[in-house]
């Protein structure tokens, strides 16, 4: 695959023009730069430049204790931070061989599926904006706000949530949380139905998206695509179904797939995934009722930071608190790969541990980074306006792309 800059000809007779799309163009929704060579409105070739917000998370992680890496994961895909947080906690729990109580797993599923919905809301809403329909975006933003209010109930934050701890959650979920989730489950289907009625059979939207940037399953797999954009091509690879984590095997859900792998299919797959997410949240709420309502973390005092009042009044808790905070906890030497189904693909954590205070090496398998590399090659021959909606349908998040 030729990816080099090809803008070598300074031929004044050339009819081609060079366009710098980005790094900060309103249509790119983040710091993405693509230098495009255009023949009229048609793209002849393009080169992606990334790394504008590279923050060296992998290097920083080598110098932080495990629990301080959670805030770094927030800033990968910041549209669905809880999935990243949970993925990281589960990686460490896998390393430490911690078995979680079922209730914690189900609470995590609720949070992760809410995060998936909020991510898909943004992606599909923005796709509407880029095709010229602002209404859907505004309708859906209301529900993202409701999800963020639910986050606030459990961790106090909205965007970079830093929710949960290694071994469970920092505090039990309150009744306001559950009532807000129940209300969301009632309200959101109506909003989603309204959103779908604006788009799914809208002639203008279909003309703009159907057949645009169609990708075959073979190409998608060769480029290591994962997530909704891979499923839109017809490959039913979903980490939640293939390698269930956090008790996803207890849930009854379907993996929606597309047929043509174009922008329209990606849009439909995301909409359908939101419905499946709601199904899972509904099931989780029912299953939680059968569990002991006081359990919100695993009983692993040597790894789980104790509550502050116990630290002040209980000798063991003080010792554990000290050991955890000072990084004196024994951790097994080994290497572990754990992946979760992020909102835009398989988010993997490759953790090499030497038993020290921080990971010896931590690598994030970031779906945005891997999905985005096909953008420039696939833009060839496309209209500029189609390339714009293709970018928003890939759901590439700059924070995750550049880590």
């Amino acid at each position, binding site marked *: *695959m*030729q*990816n*080099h800059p090809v803008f070598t000809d300074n031929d004044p007779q050339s009819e081609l023009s060079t366009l710098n799309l980005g790094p900060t163009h309103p249509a790119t929704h983040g710091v993405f730069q693509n230098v495009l060579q255009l023949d009229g409105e048609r793209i002849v070739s393009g080169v992606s430049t*990334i*790394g504008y917000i*590279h923050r*060296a998370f*992998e*290097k*920083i992680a*080598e*110098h932080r204790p495990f629990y301080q890496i959670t805030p770094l994961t927030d800033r990968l895909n910041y549209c669905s931070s809880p999935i990243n947080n949970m993925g990281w906690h589960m990686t460490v729990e*896998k*390393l430490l061989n911690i078995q979680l109580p079922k209730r914690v797993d189900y609470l995590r599923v609720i949070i992760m599926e809410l995060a998936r919905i909020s991510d898909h809301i943004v992606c599909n809403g923005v796709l509407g904006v880029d095709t010229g329909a602002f209404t859907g975006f505004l309708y859906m933003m209301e529900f993202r706000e409701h999800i963020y209010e639910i986050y606030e109930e459990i961790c106090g934050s909205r965007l970079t949530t830093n929710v949960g701890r290694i071994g469970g959650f920092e505090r039990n979920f309150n009744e306001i949380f559950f009532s807000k989730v129940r209300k969301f489950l009632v309200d959101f289907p109506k909003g989603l139905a309204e959103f779908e009625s604006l788009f799914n059979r809208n002639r203008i939207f279909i003309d703009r998206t159907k057949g645009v940037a169609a990708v075959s399953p073979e*190409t998608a*797999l*060769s*480029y*290591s*695509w994962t997530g909704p954009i891979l499923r839109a091509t017809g*490959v039913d*690879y979903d980490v939640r179904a*293939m*390698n269930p984590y956090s008790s996803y095997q207890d849930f009854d859900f379907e993996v929606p797939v597309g047929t043509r792998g174009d922008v329209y299919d990606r849009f439909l797959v995301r909409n359908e995934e939101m419905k499946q997410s709601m199904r899972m949240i509904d099931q989780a709420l029912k299953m939680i009722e059968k569990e002991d309502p006081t359990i919100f973390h695993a009983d692993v005092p040597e790894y789980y930071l104790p509550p502050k009042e116990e630290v002040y009044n209980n000798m063991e808790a003080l010792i554990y608190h000290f050991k955890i905070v000072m990084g004196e906890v024994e951790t097994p030497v*080994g*290497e*572990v*790969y754990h*992946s979760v189904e992020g909102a835009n693909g*398989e988010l*993997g954590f*490759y953790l*090499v541990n030497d038993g020290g205070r921080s990971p*010896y*090496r931590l*690598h994030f*398998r970031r779906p945005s*980074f*891997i999905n*985005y*590399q*096909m953008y420039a090659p696939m833009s060839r021959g496309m209209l500029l306006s189609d390339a714009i909606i293709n970018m928003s349908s890939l759901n590439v998040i700059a924070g995750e792309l*550049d*880590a």
Partner: protein
Amino acid sequence: MSKVTNEEIIGLITAKFGDKVIIEGEPYGMLTVETSREAIIEFLGFLKEDAALKFGFLTDITAVHYPDLEKQTGVVYHLHSLVNNIRIRIKVFLADGDVHIPSATVLWDGANWMERETYDFFGVDFVGHPDLRRILNVDDMTVFPMRREYPLEDPNRVDKKDYFFGR
């Protein structure tokens, strides 16, 4: 769950490659093998194409730097067989001053940026890569920052000296 077991994979690998591939173990259930750079493309191609294994999905390429080892840089491949739902980890260790390995872009298009990232941070030269440039760091950077000899912060920084904070 998975349709083939790690033991069956080990059997197939040793039958084909003998001592060219060393079985390291199965940490946390994932089969980990080590091979040499001479065999890596043939080995990856075998894993990808073999009718029983079908490790057709390249999950990740990265590297780990071990300054204490004789061969300091370990290139790590993660493959996933979507048909059999099983994963495998392949490592190749490279000695310092001789950090090159054939590119996997001949097998997967997706290896392109993964290898560029590995080059960018560890200085691994992927021979045969169509466009091996830095990807996340600035182009005129001269070091490979994820190697262990580079500290997190530049020790020559002057903007964090104590006297700026009244200490």
